[in-house]
């Protein structure tokens, strides 16, 4: 009886993480791909110089951030992976999602801008209540939004 309870204690969160975590991930990727298409007109670069060369009307610091939970399946998969080494695919997709989401939020915070320059991405693990436990990963994207003087206003 006790062994059964112990087994359930360890497997239920992992199974839940596998089922719902995968669903959440697939849903998130669909949303990311759809929103990225809406923002192709707003380039975000890591350059320190501007892409355009018209007169600049306004520039401002913009940020976008997201905290994504690390589900128990991903945790278990990475623990197993650490035994043999190699790419930890479960974390690769998690961080990819977080970074793309942060950049999207960055763009969504300034929909009228013409471009975003000097974009930087920072990642920070969010510690859990127990030591050495990670509950989530935060990704912060920040850059400078550039608004050029509208051509119609110049003429």
């Amino acid at each position, binding site marked *: 009886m006790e062994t059964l309870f112990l087994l359930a204690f360890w497997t239920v*969160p992992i199974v*839940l*993480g596998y089922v*719902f*975590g*995968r*669903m*959440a*991930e697939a849903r*998130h990727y669909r949303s990311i791909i759809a929103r990225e298409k809406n923002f192709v007109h707003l380039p975000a670069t890591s350059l*320190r110089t*501007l892409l355009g060369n018209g*007169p*600049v*009307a306004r*520039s*401002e*610091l913009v*940020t976008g*951030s*997201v*905290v*994504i*939970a*690390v*589900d*128990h399946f*991903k945790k278990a998969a990475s623990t197993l992976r650490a035994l043999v080494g190699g790419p930890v695919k479960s974390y690769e997709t998690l961080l990819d999602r977080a970074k793309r*989401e942060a950049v999207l939020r960055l763009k969504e915070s300034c929909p009228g801008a013409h471009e975003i*320059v*000097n974009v*930087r991405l*920072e990642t*920070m*693990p*969010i*510690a*859990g*209540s*127990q*030591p050495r436990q990670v*509950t*989530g990963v*935060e990704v*912060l994207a*920040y*850059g*400078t939004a*550039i608004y050029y003087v509208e051509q119609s206003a110049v003429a």
Partner: protein
Amino acid sequence: MILSYENTAMLITNIETIPGQTITICHGVVSGSSVRSKHVGRDIMAGLKNMVGGELRGYTELLEESRAQATERMKAQATQMGANAIVNVRFATSSVAAGAAEIYVYGTAVTVG
């Protein structure tokens, strides 16, 4: 004590210049920091979210508030120096202790004209 300078217009960028304007005076480095811890309710919600995956919205908001406060403190310092813009701004974060995070923001206070 932190004075409120929220109504002051301060130009902030993370590139070396304010495009279209010239830097006339450089005042030096300004910074602002904010240390916040998450509360138990959010921790419990996060525990549930760890079962199913997805975004930890409570933490996202918490860190955003914290970053806004750090930026506000940096702006207050720049205003005290007589600057009207902050260039080359950087954000940094560190986990000070379990359950608390420090948000640090720094840049160079300048006067543009």
